[in-house]
Each structure stands twice: as structure tokens, then as C-alpha cells.
């Protein structure tokens, strides 16, 4: 990772965290405050990103939406990675037939396109933020699990582990202290890329009306509302979408700087 990439990505993450943790610092207004007299204002000094159909300030809503989008993206990735670590580790350490069975299962899950899988899960759970996290998380898990499995398999016969065995460490201890941490380090870049993708998928679910319900300031939900007024108020659609692009592109750049390759997951 070059020096400039490191500085740039550190600044980006800090800014994003700041926006997510104290949105009021950047946008002091109330993201839900309705003012019908101010509806459909185009961008101006008073409303840099314009106002929506109820007169709510789009900039305020975009800033306040960062937390929801990030929380969903990170939680979904964490859930997917957690499931992947359990499945991948179990597969790699199992006897051959069980390993083959788990691989088949992962292939089965991988065979359903991610968004379709997410929709499938929501068909059973019903819409909402929680289901969106579960849906996005589980639909990314099979890809991660295959990577965890191959990482662990290459590490399994390393000298480090032989040493741990000779020292008499138990199986659980070896898996927890040596295998999992060392298998995860190369996956760090992919996790970063994954958070960016999860933010996109989660906002897609909200856009389709299956994630965060309106009037919460979520980027995908804002785009869904803006769609109706596309010819009337382009700013309602442009800015929430730009926010998604910035976060996803930022995550991609950090992931690539960490040495990750896109779509390996």
C-alpha cells in the first residue's frame, strides 16, 4: 500500500466514521422535519442538495443516512464472514467426504444470485432492517466460505502448526489461535471490498421496498422515493446515489490498496 493510498484511505475512513457517529455536526437539521411549503426546492445555498416531496432537506437526510447504510453493510459482512469462518473451517478440517458435502452445499448456495437469495430469505422473514442484514449477510457467506476453506487448507500443514502440535496444543486452541487468524489476514482486503458491496445490496433492498422503511433517511429508500419525481426533481435521486457510489468506490480503493481483487468473493 503506497503512502498516499494509506493517507487517503485513512482520511476517508475517519470522515465516514465522523459522519456516521455525529451526523448532527455536519448537518444540524432534523432529517425527518417536514415543511410542505419548501417541497421540491432545487439546490440552493439554503438547501445545497435541494428538498424532497415533503420539504425535507436532502443534504441532511444523506448525511444522516450514512449511519444506517454503514451499520447494515458492516453487520451483513460480519454475519456473512462469521458463517463463512464456521463453514469454511469445518470443511477444511473435516474428513474428505464431509468436506465434499459442505463444498456441495456452498455451491448450492452460490448457485442462487445474491439478490435473488436475499429476496428468497425476505419471502420467509418479511421485510425490515434485520431481515435485510440477514439476507445480505447470508447471500455473501458462500463466496467467503470457499475462500476461508482454501486458506485453511493451505495453512493446515504449515510449520507453524506442526510446531504448535509438537508443543502439545489442543485442536481447538490450534484452530482458534493459529488457523483462523492467519487465514483471515489475507481476507482483510476482501472484507473491505465486501462492505462496499453489502452497502450496495442493502440499499438495493431498501430501494425495492424490502429494507429500511420510509421515512427513515436511508439512501436506497430515498432513491425509491425520488424515482417518482425523476423528471421533476433530479436532485432527490442524484445525491443519495452519489453517496452510495462514494462509499462503495472508497471501499473498493481501500480493498485494492490492501491487495484485494474485486469479485474474488
Amino acid at each position, binding site marked *: 500500500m503506497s503512502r498516499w493510498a494509506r493517507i487517503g484511505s485513512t482520511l476517508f475512513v475517519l470522515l465516514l466514521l465522523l459522519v456516521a457517529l455525529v451526523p448532527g455536526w455536519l448537518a444540524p437539521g432534523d432529517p425527518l422535519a417536514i415543511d410542505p411549503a419548501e417541497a421540491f426546492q432545487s439546490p440552493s445555498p439554503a438547501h445545497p442538495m435541494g428538498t424532497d416531496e415533503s420539504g425535507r432537506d436532502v443534504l441532511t437526510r444523506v448525511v444522516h443516512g450514512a449511519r444506517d447504510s454503514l451499520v447494515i453493510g458492516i453487520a451483513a459482512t460480519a454475519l456473512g464472514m462469521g458463517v463463512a469462518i464456521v463453514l469454511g473451517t469445518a470443511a477444511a478440517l473435516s474428513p474428505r467426504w464431509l468436506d465434499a458435502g459442505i463444498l*456441495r*452445499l456452498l*455451491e*448450492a448456495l452460490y*448457485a*442462487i*444470485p*445474491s*439478490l*435473488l437469495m436475499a*429476496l*428468497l430469505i*425476505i*419471502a*420467509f422473514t*418479511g421485510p425490515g432492517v434485520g431481515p435485510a442484514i440477514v439476507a445480505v449477510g447470508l447471500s455473501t457467506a458462500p463466496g467467503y466460505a470457499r475462500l476461508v476453506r482454501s486458506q485453511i487448507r493451505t495453512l493446515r500443514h504449515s510449520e507453524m502448526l506442526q510446531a504448535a502440535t509438537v508443543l502439545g496444543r489442543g485442536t481447538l486452541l490450534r484452530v482458534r489461535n493459529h488457523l483462523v487468524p492467519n487465514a483471515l489476514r489475507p481476507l482483510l482486503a476482501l472484507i473491505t471490498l465486501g462492505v*462496499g458491496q453489502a452497502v*450496495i445490496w442493502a*440499499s*438495493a433492498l431498501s*430501494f*425495492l*421496498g*424490502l429494507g429500511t422503511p420510509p421515512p427513515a433517511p436511508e439512501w*436506497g429508500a430515498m*432513491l*425509491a422515493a*425520488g*424515482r417518482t419525481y*425523476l*423528471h421533476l426533481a*433530479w436532485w432527490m*435521486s*442524484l445525491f*443519495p*446515489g452519489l453517496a*452510495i*457510489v462514494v462509499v*462503495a*468506490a472508497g*471501499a*473498493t*480503493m481501500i480493498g*485494492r490498496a490492501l491487495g484485494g*481483487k*474485486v*469479485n474474488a468473493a
Partner: protein
Amino acid sequence: MGTLRWAAGRVGGALVVLWLVATAIFIGVRLIPGDPAEAIMGGPGSQASAEALAAARADYGLDEPLRVQYLMFLGKLLRLDFGTSYALRDPVLGIMGQVLPQTIVLSLLALLLAWVLALVFAAASLRATRVGAVLGNAVEIIAAAVPHFWLGAVLIMVFSSTLGWLPAVDNGTGAGLVLPVLTLALPLAGFLTQLMRDSLSTALASPFSLAARARGDSRLQVFWRHGLRHAALPALGMTGWAFSSLLSGAVVVEAVFARPGLGRALLSAVLSRDIPMVTGIALFSAAIYMVVMALTEGIERALHPAGVDS
């Protein structure tokens, strides 16, 4: 490994996968709290009539033991009987026959366009200056980070609302397909360009390219004969993944452009919790993915027979 054995393994694997997907759905329906008949009919909020519930019970054999229900369910799927959509009151298979071609055409066109764009960009980036390379890099990253639903909205704003060049809604002519295909293709093109550029530059820098140049081939000949083939292989291997991501994207694109299709049908089935419809679409898309995977693997075997087994 013989071709026949490979094909048999592929078909067998696909059947196992479809069986697993079907089983997961069967378990899922039973995990929904409350009466499974009500769940099939769209959940407790659907206020299904007593006759409709009785029909669903008989249809799914819900008073039989679980083991029998499961076998009945699989038996019906084997006969391609996915049941009747409760929201649309038509056989699921018939509805899918109507919507599937729309989505397949959309996805295939997008796949083709993404490939052409990626090849052009990858080839162009070979001759790019330093500034051009940085710019190209940025465009790729952004293209891959743009969500379909936003790109679709922006394209409508620019080409339909402002310039008035293209219709936002399909009017029966081919023009209505342009914006949806572009929306679906651009993010994928971003991914594929990243992939192709790496392998293209590696191939053109390797000894066999130099040897071909030394034999007197022109740069263009080397590019066509050697570079392209090496750039295509890894991207071809990703076709299964690409197609699967296109099907995901189609759900969103069909919603944005109000097009009929598999994604749109799935979305409305999920919103009305139309389980028979959801089951049919899930199995169908898994089957499509399997077919695409088998096809790309077949093409890879034909292009590069030695590399497949290693």
C-alpha cells in the same frame, strides 16, 4: 478425464444442487410461524378464504406426515409442477414461460455489451499514458461501484427526460431496450475490464509474444492471436458469476424501467409472499446458473484442453 464423464458429473452435480435448494425452501416454509397453509397463501395478513386454505392443504398434503409431504413436494417438482401462483392465480410454470425470455434477452445483451466494452477498454488501456491509466483506473472502480438502480435513474434523467433521445419505458421497439441493457452492462464492464487488463498485459509481456514478434508478426497480429485469447480466458471463467450478477441486477433494472421479467415477477411474489412463485423462480434461476456454468466450462475445455485438469 473424458468429455462424457465430465458431462455426467456436471449434470449430477446440478441435480444435487437443485435438490438442496428445493429442500431448503421446503424447510423454510415450515419454519414460518403459524399455519403452513396460510404461509403458502401469503401469510397471516392475506385473509385467505377457508376454501382457499383447504385447497392449499390438499395441494401440499399438509395433513400427511412430514416425510410424505416432502416426497410429494419433490415428486411434483420432478414433473415440473410448481403449483399455482396465489397472487396471480395461474400455474407458476406458465407465468415463468412468459417472463423468462424477457430477462434472458436482457441479460444476454448486457453480457455481450459488457464483454465488448471491457475488451475495448482493456485494449485501449495498453497504450494509455500515465494520466490515462489513472483515469481508466478511476472509471473502472466507479463503474463497479455504481448501483444499478441509481445508474438507471441517471440514464433516464439524461437520455430520456433531458435529451429525449431514448424512451424510459419499453414501447415495443428495440429502443426501449437500450437504457436497461446499458444500465445492466456498465457495472459488469467495470469488473471485467479490471480482470482482462491484468491478463492482457501479462500475456503481451510474456516470452511467447516476444517470440511471435521476432517471427515477424505485427503488433496487431500478436494482439489478436495471443493477447486476446489470454485476456478472454479468465474473464470467460467468470461468466457464470457474471450471469448470476446480471440476474441480480435484472431484479432492480426491471423495477426501474417497469419491464416485465423474472426479477419483477420475483419481487412481486416476495412482496405478496407468494411461496409457490418464489420456489419456482429460485429453482429456475439456480438451474440457469448451472447451465451457464456448464456451458462456460465446456467452452474453456474447448479453448484450453490442457489446462482444465491441472
